[in-house]
């Protein structure tokens, strides 16, 4: 059916470079890593060996063939020095934030902000946090992301070494956004990083965290990131994830959030880069009165494939979740969206809403969308909707009637479609910057 060359789906493979990489890490870390971390990694590896890379027979991976990822000659990228000026061209690169920079997976002291701008927050590189046995890191790390279900989470857990550990202290409002910047510099195929982020928002705290993934060159690198978010009672968190790697890179990202009573989580996932990009976002609303808003935007072109799988678990009564995902697909790109809402038997008075809208800009583009509801409680209000289509003729006509050319009108509307999601971000500079990217992408004259 598709004209794309078919790469055979690979069966379970647990030997080869991915296993070798784990063996290497284990022997290297033997002396320095605390026992609990070694145990976590070992469990992760056991799960990965058991699960293997998923094939397209796997319902969760039906439309995303990860065979090219499994076939990568994975290795740790070589160390490379990056100049501060090189970072400035990245999105959010010049924004006043508390910035933590990782070059090819390693924490960079020189490029990261040197001083804490705020008292209410504690930020460590995961490596130091683990080695100094910080209690809260030990308590939460690896407890939420499901290594037993997802092979990529298992792989990340087995290989976790570097990343960030962030703690927003109780009742503190952190005004300045925290920006985690992950840069891949390698142009070698298979250069792999497994960044791991742990965010703990303590009782009554509030913060904004940006996570962005960028490439400096055009290599087919692999980024396999996992973020765990722990939200204690009445905490507020806005999490914005931007994936803008090169179009030959492979990206797999998982965000797992665990919410306690009356906490409020807003996530944004913007995915534009990657040859194959897969993002999983799984919030668990595990106490009454939680609220969760999930926004997403994927914009792809050429031969890109972008896949978003979100799963909201309503485990307790009286929680609300709202999800809005927009997709814009051009060229021969493929988009996959799978949004699940689970309402557990006791989660009465749940209000869950999900919307996925897609714009296809070329006949070569394909979208697979599957909004899914699984409801086990009766007193709930759940809706979902998905649309695929083109721009409204009336809207185009309205603009044309005002003297705007057809092409310009179309671009304007595509831009507006993207802005629908961007405008949901509350951090103004982020919104402005992302909107500029969308403007450049859609409205600026596409001359050579």
């Amino acid at each position, binding site marked *: *059916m598709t004209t794309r060359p078919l790469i055979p789906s690979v069966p379970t493979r647990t030997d080869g470079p991915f296993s070798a990489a784990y063996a290497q890490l284990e022997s290297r870390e033997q002396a320095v890593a605390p026992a609990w971390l070694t145990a976590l990694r070992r469990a992760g590896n056991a799960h990965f060996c058991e699960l293997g890379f998923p094939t397209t027979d796997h*319902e969760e991976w039906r439309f995303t063939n990860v065979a090219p990822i499994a076939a990568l000659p994975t290795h740790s990228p070589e160390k490379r020095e990056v100049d501060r000026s090189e970072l400035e061209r990245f999105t959010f690169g010049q924004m006043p934030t508390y910035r933590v920079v990782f070059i090819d997976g390693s924490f960079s002291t020189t490029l990261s902000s040197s001083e804490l701008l705020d008292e209410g927050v504690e930020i460590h590189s995961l490596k130091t946090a683990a080695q100094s046995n910080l209690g809260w890191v030990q308590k939460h790390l690896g407890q939420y992301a499901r290594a037993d279900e997802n092979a990529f989470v298992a792989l990340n857990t087995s290989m976790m070494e570097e990343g960030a550990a962030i703690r927003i202290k109780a009742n503190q409002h952190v005004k300045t956004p925290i920006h985690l910047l992950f840069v891949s510099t390698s142009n070698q195929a298979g250069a792999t990083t497994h960044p791991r982020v742990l965010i703990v928002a303590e009782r009554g705290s509030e913060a904004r965290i940006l996570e962005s993934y960028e490439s400096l060159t055009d290599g087919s690198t692999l980024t396999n990131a996992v973020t765990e978010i722990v939200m204690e009672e009445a905490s507020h968190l806005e999490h914005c994830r931007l994936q803008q790697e090169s179009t030959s890179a492979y990206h797999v990202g998982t965000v797992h959030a665990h919410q306690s009573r009356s906490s409020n989580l807003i996530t944004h996932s913007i995915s534009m880069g990657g040859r194959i990009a897969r993002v999983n976002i799984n919030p668990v609303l595990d106490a009454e009165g939680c609220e969760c808003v999930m926004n997403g935007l994927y914009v792809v072109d050429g031969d890109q494939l972008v896949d978003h799988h979100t799963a909201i678990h309503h485990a307790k009564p009286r929680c609300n979740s709202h999800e809005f995902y927009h997709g814009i697909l051009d060229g021969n790109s493929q988009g996959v969206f799978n949004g699940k809402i689970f309402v557990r*038997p006791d989660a*009465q008075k749940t209000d869950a809403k999900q919307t996925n809208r*897609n714009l*296809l*800009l*070329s*006949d070569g*583009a*394909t*979208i*697979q*969308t*599957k*909004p*899914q*509801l*699984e*409801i*086990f*409680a*009766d*007193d*709930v*209000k*759940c*809706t*979902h*909707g*998905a*649309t*695929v*289509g*083109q721009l409204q003729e009336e809207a185009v006509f309205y603009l044309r009637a005002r003297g705007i050319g057809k092409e310009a009108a179309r671009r304007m509307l595509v831009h507006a479609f993207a802005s629908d999601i961007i405008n949901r971000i509350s951090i103004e500079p982020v919104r402005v910057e992302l909107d500029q990217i969308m403007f450049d992408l859609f409205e600026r004259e596409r001359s050579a």
Partner: protein
Amino acid sequence: MSTSTETIEQFVNREYQYGFVTDVESDEAPRGLSEDTVRLISHKKGEPKFLLEWRLKAYRYWLTMKEPVWPNVHYPKIDYQNIIYYSAPKQKTDGPKSLDEVDPKLIETYKKLGIPLREQERLAGVAVDAVFDSVSVATTFKGKLGEMGIVFCSFSDAVKEHPELIKKYLGSVVPYTDNYFAALNSAVYSDGSFCYIPKGVKCPMELSTYFRINAVDTGQFERTLIVAEEGSSVSYLEGCTAPRRDTNQLHAAVVEIVAMDRAEVKYSTVQNWYPGDEMGRGGIYNFVTKRGLCKGVCSKISWTQVETGSAITWKYPSVILKGDQSVGEFYSVALTTNYQQADTGTKMVHIGKNTKSTIISKGISAGRGQNSYRGQVKVMRSATGSRNFSQCDSLLLGDKCGAHTFPYLEVKNTSSTVEHEASTSKIGEDQIFYCRQRGLSTQDAINMIVNGYCKEVFRQLPMEFAVEAQKLLGVSLEGSVG
């Protein structure tokens, strides 16, 4: 719209009313499945060689397949060697020539079911083909339809009388390689209905098939084939019941529809197989493959189903929209109570230009029922200007049941529009309060609200069926609230 004056008590005391067993001697094949069974069935039916070959091919293919596990239903593994694949009511002569020759006990059964064949022949004007266990026992109105060139008969008769049509169309929409249960059906199907509407003919009456499983431990595998030639139209009804038994029985049917240029086929089902008792014991496993092919331009196939029975339903009536401007429709009400499980929905494959499809699915879960909607809308690159609208709503009654929605949307061109909407809710306290204020009991209020909720689908059903469907819902919902 209910015409009955039955009181609530009657409703409450009513159990599955079709659960009786008719004591008819039957001619059964030995238990188990092998090439010999396939040959035996084919031999008993006196089939031509091509059909036997086809069955054997299907059987051999089936052996290589695995039972699907993706549906959202759970049941103990089926032992395919412990099923009787052929069971026919024994008859003294070779076959009934007219209704008068049909075993009076069978006629009695159908009367109990509410399809008095004779009366219907005269009064209702519905032509019925009744399938008892595995073979077709009577076809009414054959003569009258024959005058117009319409062929409506049992599948075995069609094989004898119109082998060329069977050869041409059998398996053309659902090939035996399609899925596990279609392959099984292709190998062992015993009878079913065949319907051929010639060019330009509008069938003047509703055609109807009634399926009944009677014998114990039998599987029913019937096959329906409908061919509507250019410019013709037909409305087809199907009803099903089975006796109450503690064991599960398998029903794996295949329905194929072919619609040529400007032909219209409307297929309505009221499925009321025995659903098992309130503890989830027994009941029919209803694993059915139904598919229509809109082969010609401007053709239309419309599925309407009311699913209230069966322990497990696994059924996706689909339409392949191959002809330009063809239309596919799917209207469904699926009800699960007690321990019933349903995984049902549709598949609309848009291939031709400017094709249109509409999906309206209403799921109702009560008791411990699990109800899943699973549907796919696929718009191929060639299907420019296509349009789909899907709406699937779920209603939950009680806190032990579940409703699930798995819609797959796949779009490969820019000029098509696909919309999917779904909602899940329960009956509001305020709605019930409003009805009670006006003197309705809670149960009546619920019946009324549920019937209102299903109205969009019931409207698609022919009148008699709509009334039956409403009653069925009322009965099945009994006691599920409170």
